């Protein structure tokens, strides 16, 4: 069964081989003197580093070199970079600038091959040679086999390659090294010069191979590393000129390895996590730029508490755990967000500003099927242009965010099949006037200002519909009447206070016998009472003249007369007592004399109090 599947996979390749032996591709005089290939199979991303020593044996100057990939590889090719090497052969991806690579379709190559053409910076003359380092990165090229496993099973993968370098040129000498993870190797194609040393598998060397040679090999090996694939990643980069670049990343992650058959036992997973759940991954690590702050990790139903963050001056590392361990075929979705200091990423150039930030996701060894990078520029940005080191789909949108009026311009970049190698910096150039930063604060301030002004106007303005209507006038008058009544009320109260003063003076008199002091008090009280009665006249006359006061008037007048009476009686009482003291009469006699007054005073006082309360009620 196993073999059958392998064969079916190989079938298109074999089909391609029918053409290999016809002398098709003769246009070139190039010869590959030495080819070293290293294939890294330790993660889900397959990286093939090829070092080519190219010699020109023909007479023409050659300015481009062709690279060919079989179809089953070409459709998984995520990244291709060719650099001029120093000629050391084994040099890995040198930091040099990549040479321009483009897909071509020469008409004389066998079908089933995809050809890329590398343009050399200067032509390769006769007899000259150079070293070309090519890095090709593939995703989804490892096939889990078996495709469905149980929780306890390990994950086995199949990888197919050609032991001989597939090239349109003749190859003099070549070798192939496969780097496998430190684990079991189920099987590999045992060709005659295949060698397994530890976790390295070597094929070759092969010599003097004609163009388009193909020698299929298959490796079946164990790999339990996380097969984290983001089906879709939306990365939003929002620039605020107040000093922050806010990045929000929405991930839709799937475990793209061997599918889980369904049954999941937490017990097994907890007791023997590395045995009964080896193919699952529980955490992902993201490397964020230094000085990242306000990091959050959540999904649509809330915060996810299983994450940790640490950092130094060069990087910030965020370790996140999905809500549940990820088994084959399981999916999850979450959002990471963080803020970055603006000055690290935004620069000015000739009156323009540009954002310089990395393209891909910060998570290690993550394959992204589709990425959308959205750069949200501040409102009012103009002359927007983008420069990305590799081809992407690009368009513009508008996003309305906090307090925007016209919306912020958004540059959207879309790319399929993204690998960590795509984490290169890209630039967005735009023009922006710093003054427009102040629009929103100004809007807020003026908004609140007008709100308060409206409140002030509302509370100050008289917004009655009709100023001349009878009811309105009546209300005004009624208010006035009330105020007058209050005034009268106050005056009467003061009269009563004066009365109390008289009473107290009498008290003092009975205690100290100081007649003079008592008389003095009497005088002052008299004068104040006189003043008060004068004061009373004016409001009283107003009330009498006012028709609205008809209701109150009798009461007020009653109060007025009662108070007068009370005043008279008090004065009488006071005179009597003082006289009594002056005549040195006994206390009892004085009391007898004033007893009648006292009664009346008490009665009157009660009436006045009641009236006061009544008026107050009105």
């Amino acid at each position, binding site marked *: 069964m196993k073999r059958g599947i392998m064969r079916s996979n190989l079938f298109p390749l074999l089909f391609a081989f029918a053409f290999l032996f016809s002398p098709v591709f003769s246009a070139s005089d190039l010869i590959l003197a030495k080819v070293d290939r290293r294939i890294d199979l330790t993660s889900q991303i397959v990286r093939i580093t090829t070092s080519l020593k190219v010699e020109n044996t023909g007479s023409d100057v050659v300015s481009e070199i062709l690279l060919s990939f079989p179809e089953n590889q070409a459709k998984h090719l995520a990244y291709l970079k060719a650099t001029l090497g120093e000629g050391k052969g084994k040099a890995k991806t040198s930091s040099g600038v990549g040479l321009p690579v483009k897909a071509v379709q020469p008409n004389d190559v066998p079908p089933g091959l995809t050809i890329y053409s590398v343009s050399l910076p200067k032509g390769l003359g006769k007899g000259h040679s150079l070293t070309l380092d090519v890095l090709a990165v593939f995703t989804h090229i490892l096939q889990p086999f078996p495709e469905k496993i149980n929780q306890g099973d390990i994950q086995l993968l199949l990888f197919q390659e050609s032991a001989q370098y597939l090239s349109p040129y003749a190859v003099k000498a070549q070798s192939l090294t496969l780097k496998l993870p430190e684990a079991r190797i189920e099987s590999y194609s045992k060709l005659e010069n295949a060698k397994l040393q530890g976790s390295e598998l070597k094929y070759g060397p092969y010599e003097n191979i004609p163009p388009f040679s193909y020698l299929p090999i298959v490796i079946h090996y164990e790999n339990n590393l996380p097969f984290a694939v983001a089906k879709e990643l939306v990365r939003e980069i929002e620039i605020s000129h107040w000093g922050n670049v806010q990045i929000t990343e929405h991930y839709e992650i799937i475990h793209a390895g061997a599918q889980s058959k369904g*049954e999941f036992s937490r017990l097994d997973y907890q007791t023997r996590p590395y045995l009964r759940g080896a193919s699952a991954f529980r955490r992902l690590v993201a490397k964020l730029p230094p000085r990242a702050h306000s990091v959050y990790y959540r999904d649509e139903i809330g915060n996810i508490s299983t994450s940790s963050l640490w950092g130094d001056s060069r990087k910030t590392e965020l370790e996140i755990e999905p809500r*549940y361990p990820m088994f084959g075929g399981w999916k999850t979705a979450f959002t990471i967000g963080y803020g970055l200091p603006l000055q690290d990423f935004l620069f000015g150039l000739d009156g323009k500003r540009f954002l310089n930030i990395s393209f891909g996701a910060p998570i290690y060894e993550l394959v992204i099927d589709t990425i959308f990078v959205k750069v949200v520029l501040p409102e009012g940005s103009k002359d927007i242009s983008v420069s990305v080191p590799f081809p992407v789909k690009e368009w513009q949108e508008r996003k309305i965010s906090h307090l925007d009026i016209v919306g912020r311009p958004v540059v959207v970049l879309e790319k399929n099949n993204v690998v960590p190698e795509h984490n290169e910096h890209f630039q967005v150039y735009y023009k922006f006037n710093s003054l427009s930063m102040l629009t929103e604060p100004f809007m807020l301030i003026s908004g609140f200002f007008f709100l308060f002004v409206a409140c002030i106007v509302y509370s100050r303005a008289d917004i009655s519909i009709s100023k001349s209507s009878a009811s309105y006038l009546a209300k005004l008058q009624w208010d006035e009447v009330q*105020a007058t009544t209050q005034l009268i009320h106050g005056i009467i109260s003061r009269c009563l206070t004066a009365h109390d003063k008289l009473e107290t003076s009498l008290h003092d008199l009975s205690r100290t016998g100081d007649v003079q002091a008592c008389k003095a008090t009497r005088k002052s009280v008299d004068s104040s009472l006189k003043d008060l009665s004068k004061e009373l006249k004016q409001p009283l006359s107003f009330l009498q003249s006012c028709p609205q006061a008809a209701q109150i008037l009798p009461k007020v007048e009653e109060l007025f007369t009662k108070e007068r009476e009370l005043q008279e009686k008090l004065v009488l009482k006071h005179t009597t007592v003082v006289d009594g003291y002056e005549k040195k009469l006994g206390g009892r006699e004085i009391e007898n004399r004033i007893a009648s007054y006292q009664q009346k005073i008490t009665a009157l006082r009660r009436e006045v109090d009641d009236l006061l309360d009544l008026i107050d009620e009105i």
Partner: protein
Amino acid sequence: MVPKARMPGASSHVIKYESVIHEFDPYFNYRVTQFLTKNGIYDFWNWFDDRTWYPLGRVIGGTVYPGLTLTAGTLWWILNSLNIPLSVETVCVFTAPIFSAFASWATYLLTKEVKGAGAGLTAAILLAMVPSYISRSVAGSYDNEAVAIFALIFTFYLYIKVCSWGGYTFIINLIPMHVLLCIVTGRYSSRLYIAYAPLVVLGTLLASLVPVVGFNAVMTSEHFASFLVFIIIHVVALVYYIKGILSPKMFKVAVALVVSVGLAVCCAMVAVLIALVASSPTKGWSGRSLSLLDPTYASKYIPIIASVSEHQPPTWPSYFMDINVLAFLVPAGIIACFSPLSDASSFVVLYIVTSVYFSGVMVRLMLVLAPAACILSGIALSQAFDVFTRSIKFQLPHLSDHSQAGEGSSENVVPNDSVKADKTEDTSKERTSKRSKKKEKEPVEKPLSKSQIKKRLSVLPLETSVIAIILLVLLGAFYVVHSVWAAAEAYSAPSIVLTSHSHDGLHVFDDFREAYAWLSHNTEVDDKVASWWDYGYQTTAMANRTVIVDNNTWNNTHIATVGTAMSSPEKAAWEIFQSLDVKYVLVVFGGLVGYPSDDINKFLWMVRIGGGVFPHIKEPDYLRDGQYRIDSMATPTMLNCLMYKLSYYRFVETDGKAFDRVRRTEIGKKHFKLTHFEEVFTTHHWMVRIYKLKPPKNRIRGKTKKSKSKTSSKTASKRKGLKRNPF
């Protein structure tokens, strides 16, 4: 002049966890709000939800009280049209705190009408902290109560302010009672009529516009009181009117005539009404309301209502926990309301008396009691402070002479000398503030007027007043400390995320969301999930999967079917679930970490509810000598039922003994296998376990022909019996 300072939304709570929706019902409200904001109001009214009550579905637009949802939806819409893009979730989370702030303000207004601004402010402060209300108004508690309490208090306020707006059952019965009280005590006035008559007419009209109420507004007995009083008030108004235009003699004749005719007509009407009401099975009252009137009703007849812990009668400690010292202040407040008794204060007294009764019936209605308790305690405290500070003022003569400014710092009496001076200017504002001003004026004129002698008698000794004030302040401080503690520790937990403190720090139990996230990402969109109804709302909202029953509990039979399945043996349960097209079964299990409100503890209710409809499930089968137990003494029916098996599947392998930390015992049956279900997911702390129904063909494959035919006949019988009980 009136102190304008009102309590800022003091109920807004410290976000200790995160901005997340709490509990069960709020998730439903959240989901409805999401739908409303996405699809608009017309789709909302016509919304038939097929993701719940499978296969029946639920007409959400016609069965949901839309007030809360529309409020939050409008808030969200306003914010978004101002280009403030808040998510629906954020708006929902913060709706409750915002409205609790409004409620505090409404309490101030209401109490001010009753006893003046001082009492109003005290009551508002008390309400801002009362634990009972905090428990329902923390951020994230997105439920009707949060907005309803504000609406309730504000309606009462408006009603007292002579103008009103329709509320619901409690309001619609309390207000007629008050009107009746006013009429009986001879307090009828045209203002009462103006307040009440439009309330009934407009309120009923507006309420019947809401689909869920509809014709219930005139059909059910809950509204009977309001219409009866409506008639009475008209009769009384007519009588007063006739009294006004007729001479006393003529009036007597007219009364005799009208009373004799009226009695006859009334008797006939009442007879017809009684006959109508009696002909309906529940006497026209809905179950929940009946259990209010008769606390034993629910436990006798409706296990679903009785099974909810919120519907149990409260215990004394819960009173202390929820309203704390207010419980002791309320009687004092009632006394204060009687001196003097006004329309407003009689209303408040009526309010507290009814709410005390209702809170005694159901824990949930403690929430209605809380504002009443706050208002009366506010009155009591304010009056007490008033008396004590006045006593102190009389004892310290140099204070009482002229400077009133320093008086009553704990109260808010406005300095009065200036009031008099500029009296003429503020005439326009006079009317509103007059009552309070009068109150404040009294102490000033007291030393002068004669009534002051009377007051002087009620003055307490200086030392006593000082000590009393100190004690009152201590009481208040105790209340504040208790409330803060209750808000922080007891009531702010969202119940969906649990935490525990251990020696190595805080430990978070986020199992529910783990399970819901797993369901939402790793099952098919149309898969049906069966669980006890408590988790229905959360499953639809967070996992977006179709559920069989949810917290709405409108169909008792359907819930009983799930209860029956849970209490049946594995095979029978499988058949029931299969007939309902269920693919996953979700159980909540707390035995590993000691989470007490799990399904095993709720299991007896499943048995009771199931047994109520399907008589072959008998409660005694699950009890050993009347005791509910899951250890080795448990009955075989218990040990073989689905709930037991799903909860304890492979539990023994965790510690070798299968010790259940909630029940504090070793379980009865430790080693068993599942034949019709397979475990597909268990959360980190085993709190949620999800099982998948094995497909039928697997079962048939290994069996003989004979058993095959048996199964098919079973399936046939079950298909026919989907609606009715198959057993």
